[in-house]
């Protein structure tokens, strides 16, 4: 049943949210976001199946491209962070506050 | 003389002020420019006064569409009510340049700006334009107070600014409400103050809007209990600012109530008038009582000013032609008396370097001219017949009595309360024995005396022969009650029993 796919997509999405919520490791946080994007891709494809409409596939494809671009940038930032402090802990970066 | 007399009167000082602000001029030049411009405005205003025909309608109208899609326009015009506030500012402001000669350039520039903005506010016939000038006139005050004020100037500046802006922002909401209501009624957008008179709003939202306007004006006037910014601001401000605030700016609040609120909210206004009148009366007594306990003469005068504004407020809310006409008259009278008293206080402060009443004494024998002028202004302020203060106060009490006996009687108490603190002040500062601070008090120089003479004469002339002035006011005030609906008429005589009682034919 198509609902199962959607439910799975929601579960994955929520796990991604929990990952961002709970983790301090930059890589993990970043991959959690990727997980959320993947969950929405799954939803797109499931909905495409439901709607009998291939637009969803195109959209998922585009999202993949965006995810790739985002990944490139995120990794650049990771390298920058690592260069500056040698840490991957997001909590280390809390000079700006208040 | 000119086609756009009012525009010239508004923008001449503003442009001159801006030029002064930026041009690298000396203080003396700035003072001369300021004096010259304000004199020019005075000349123009006399032209306006002479040309004013007192028809009860707007005169000297200028109309240029500004934002046509919303019906906002550059719309100017004056009626009898505006005329007198206009005249008061035009007549009184030149004095300041004569009296206070050694100030910074920005001082004079800001004075010019505030003059232009105030004239703009009373000439504006469009709500948005009115609001623009209303806010703009606060800015120079803000800067003058903050830059040239006394030792505790910053808290005072912040208090007055935040307080008044808070009020005026509420007014902004209220005027937007009016415009929307007008749009709903007629299908066209307009912010014309005159057209708002076509509205007859009632209901909760209208009451809220009424209070929006009223709080703005009450803060500016200031009406009890919104007066708490006043003592600090009046005391800390440089003399010219205090003068401008008390003599003219406070009156524009009253003007707003009369011009904007009364026509647009006839029903709701009538419903709440008694409430506001009580606020006025309580304010009069409260501030009058507070004044007696002050040890700082500027503060005392500040409370006295607030107390008088309470009376003026009663006049507005009494809603009959005597009270309203008296209000306008009292506005001018108060400008000439209390305003001038603040100028005297400024001179006192400048020459004695103290604001404490206890440090002073015996000035009457040192400086007879100063004492004489001060006494005349003081007597006008306590409403002695023969001075301008009496006519207004008498008319207000008369009108208030008709409106509500209790209000009338309580307003009458001002006769006593005012005299108490004023005499006390006069006794301590001018009579008794000289103290160190006032021992070598220099009397007014001939030039200074000459600067005061017109105002002192005005006080006397307005008290002795008020008819020519009232003739210009009355058509405009009468107009408010000519078209009054039966509801208002009923509401205006809250004490019908008394009225009936007084006039029933005896068998």
């Amino acid at each position: 049943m198509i609902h199962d796919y959607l439910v799975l997509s929601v579960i994955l999405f929520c796990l991604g949210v929990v990952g961002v919520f709970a983790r301090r490791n930059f890589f993990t946080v970043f991959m959690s976001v990727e997980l959320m994007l993947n969950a929405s891709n799954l939803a797109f494809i499931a909905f495409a199946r439901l709607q009998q409409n291939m637009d969803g596939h195109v959209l998922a494809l585009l999202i993949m491209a965006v995810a790739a671009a985002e990944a490139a940038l995120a990794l650049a930032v990771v390298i920058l962070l690592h260069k500056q402090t040698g840490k991957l802990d997001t909590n280390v970066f809390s000079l700006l506050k208040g | 003389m000119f086609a756009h007399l009012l525009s010239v009167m508004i923008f001449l000082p503003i442009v001159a002020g801006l030029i002064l602000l930026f041009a690298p001029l000396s203080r003396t030049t700035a003072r001369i420019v300021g004096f010259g411009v304000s004199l020019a405005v005075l000349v123009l205003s006399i032209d306006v006064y002479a040309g004013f025909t007192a028809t009860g309608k707007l005169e000297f109208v200028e109309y240029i569409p500004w934002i046509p899609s919303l019906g906002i326009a550059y719309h100017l015009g004056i009626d009898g009510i505006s005329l007198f506030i206009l005249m008061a500012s035009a007549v009184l402001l030149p004095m300041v340049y004569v009296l206070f000669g050694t100030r910074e350039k920005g001082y004079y520039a800001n004075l010019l700006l505030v003059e232009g903005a105030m004239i703009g506010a009373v000439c504006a016939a469009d709500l948005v334009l009115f609001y623009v000038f209303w806010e703009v006139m606060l800015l120079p005050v803000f800067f003058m107070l903050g830059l040239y004020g006394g030792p505790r100037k910053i808290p005072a500046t912040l208090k007055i600014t935040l307080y008044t802006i808070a009020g005026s922002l509420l007014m902004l909401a209220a005027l937007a409400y009016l415009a929307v209501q007008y749009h709903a009624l007629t299908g066209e957008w307009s912010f014309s103050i005159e057209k708002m008179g076509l509205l007859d709003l009632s209901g909760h939202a209208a009451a809220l809007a009424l209070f929006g306007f009223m709080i703005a004006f009450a803060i500016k006037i200031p009406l009890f209990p919104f007066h708490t910014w006043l003592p600090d601001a009046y005391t800390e401000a440089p003399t010219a600012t205090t003068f401008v605030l008390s003599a003219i700016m406070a009156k524009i609040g009253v003007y707003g109530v009369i011009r904007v609120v009364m026509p647009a909210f006839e029903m709701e206004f009538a419903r709440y008038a008694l409430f506001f009148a009580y606020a006025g009366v309580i304010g009069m007594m409260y501030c009058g009582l507070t004044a007696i306990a002050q040890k700082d003469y500027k503060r005392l005068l500040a409370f006295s000013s607030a107390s008088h504004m309470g009376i003026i407020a009663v006049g507005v809310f009494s809603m009959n032609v005597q009270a309203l006409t008296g209000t306008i008259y009292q506005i001018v009278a108060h400008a000439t008396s209390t305003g001038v008293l603040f100028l005297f206080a400024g001179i006192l402060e400048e020459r004695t370097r103290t604001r404490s009443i206890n440090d002073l004494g015996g000035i009457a024998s040192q400086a007879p001219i100063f004492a004489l002028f001060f006494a005349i202004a003081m007597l006008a302020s306590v409403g002695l017949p023969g001075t301008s203060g009496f006519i207004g106060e008498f008319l207000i009490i008369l009108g208030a009595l008709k409106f509500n006996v209790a209000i009338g009687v309580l307003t009458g108490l001002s006769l006593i309360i005012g005299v108490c603190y004023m005499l006390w002040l006069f006794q301590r500062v001018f009579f008794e024995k000289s103290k160190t601070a006032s021992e070598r008090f220099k009397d007014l120089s001939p030039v200074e005396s000459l600067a005061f003479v017109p105002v002192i004469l005005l006080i006397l002339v307005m008290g002795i022969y008020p008819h020519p002035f009232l003739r210009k006011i009355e058509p405009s005030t009468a107009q408010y009650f000519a078209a009054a609906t039966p509801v208002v008429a009923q509401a205006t005589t809250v004490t019908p029993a008394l009225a009936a009682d007084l006039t029933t034919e005896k068998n």
Partner: protein
Amino acid sequence: MEHSTFYLGMIPLYPLLGAVCIGLFHVLTCKRWQVPPLVYGLLACVGPAMSFFLALRVFFELRALPLDARFFTYKAFTWFSVGDLHLDMGFLADPLSGLMLLFVTFIGTLIHVYSIGYMSGDKSYAKFFAYMNLFLGSMLILVLGDSPVVMFVGWEGVGLCSYLLISYYSEDRDNVLAGNKAFIVNRIGDLGFVLGMGFLFWAIGSHGFDFLSLKANAHMMTESSILIVCLLLFVGATGKSAQIPLYVWLPDAMAGPTPVSALIHAATMVTAGVYMVARFSFLYVEVAAAGMIVAWIGILTALLAAIFGMFQDDIKKVLAYSTVSQLGYMFAGVGVTAYSAGIFHVFTHAFFKALLFLGAGAVIYVLHHEQNIWKMGGLKKKMPITYCTMLIGALALAGCPPFAGFFSKDEILYSALANGHFFIWLIGVLVAAMTAYYTFRMIFVVFHGQPRDQQAYDHAHEAPLVMTVPLIILAIGALFAGFYNLPAIFGGEQMISHWLAPSVADQHPHDSFLLEFFVIATSVAAFAFGLWVAYKRFGKGAEEPVFTGFARFAYHKFYVDELYDAVFVRPYKAIGAEISEGVEPNMTDAPVTGIARLYMRVGTLVKVLQSGYVRVYAIYMVLGLGIMSFILSQSLN
């Protein structure tokens, strides 16, 4: 009758112009050169004298008019006109104002002349005369005003001058305080006046607010509203004429120079209240209760002041209380609707009281401002003219026939009894005896016996001519003024009563010879008794007494001043201070400052939320999201 009434306006204008001229002249010259004081003195006398001549002209023109149209007016200009309120700056000459004009200008002129002498040597001579002229001008406006509001102008004007002149010696705080007291107490009365005018206006003022129209329309008012108006106006009168409960300012007002006391606080200004009640007689006659209240207040004041007068040791205070007491008589007179009698007493009182004050002034003048009677004595020999004239004045005041005071007082007492007010009459007789007592107590102590202060006595001499001449003239007045209204019993024609008839609404009692004779007899007996007691105690010289018991109580004026101080003045100041220090910062301003503080506090609290941890920001987002999702899912059902 076709004639110009323009000069009516000139009557108050002359003294006012005089005041302005003197004031300006003084202000312009005071810095540069010394102007001889005589210049000011003469300048000051011109205005009153001119007014006096014009007053005479008014008098004669009025006489020429037929009885039922014996008035004329002059409207200088429209004063103000708002809605149905229309007021002219108008002046009304009718028998009442004509009579007042005459003696006000006459006595005023005399006192100006006297002042030239009395004030010589004073450093602000010009100021004094400017005030005096200003006063006279205001008084004339008060008298001539053709509407209550114009009258009020003069009313407040005289109050102002009274203030200025009481605090004339302004270096002394007590004098200024006395001035303040006078002004403030007068203002309390003025409030009544203003409110009275207000009610009157809303009742019938829209048909014209001048006295003639008011009189014509008075019938339209209900009794209760007339009562309200009358009582409010009477409050004004008690302020100005120093009646209970507002009499307290007058004794203190003696702080001013003596001519001031004579002119303002005895002869003219203080009688304005009586004049005003007489002016409004068309209202007072309508409601009996109003008159009764006036009469009772008056007679009680008379009694109270007489009691105080018996124990004073300041010569001017004695006279001051006698003034209050006599004013009480006048109110009793107008209260029992004997308006002409009241006005007649005003008229005679003006002469003899001015005389007494000027005489006292002369004494004070020669004794270098010594006012305590217990420091005087035996001055009879040194100052014969003063003594004689003062004796005439005293006899007049005490009500000795045939001096002026006797006739007017008798007229009042007779009217009271004849109109059925027995107790008022009884108190009146009692007061008459007391009056005789304290008057002669003063005369005996000051002029008879042995000098108590030898040094001062040695330097004493007769006052200069400029002072004694007015004394003599006034003494003649005090002697003969009474004959103007000689009652029928003495073969008189009651000239003043008839003269006043068109102006005031007298209710003449039935002429009863027996009753009148009885009244005269009791009055004379009361006078004789008072005189006898005074002579017994002070005729041969006496030492300053030590008061005990009731006398002590009365010597301290029943502690009324202290009572007022405790009940009104102190609480007033305390409330002011409380508001200023307690209510203002803690209640009125508290919401404003409170909101500001709260706002800052929240600001600093919220800062903590910006922790700087990116995860925390994500948590905010998730929490917000969670809450919103929860709400949205509720809406789904």
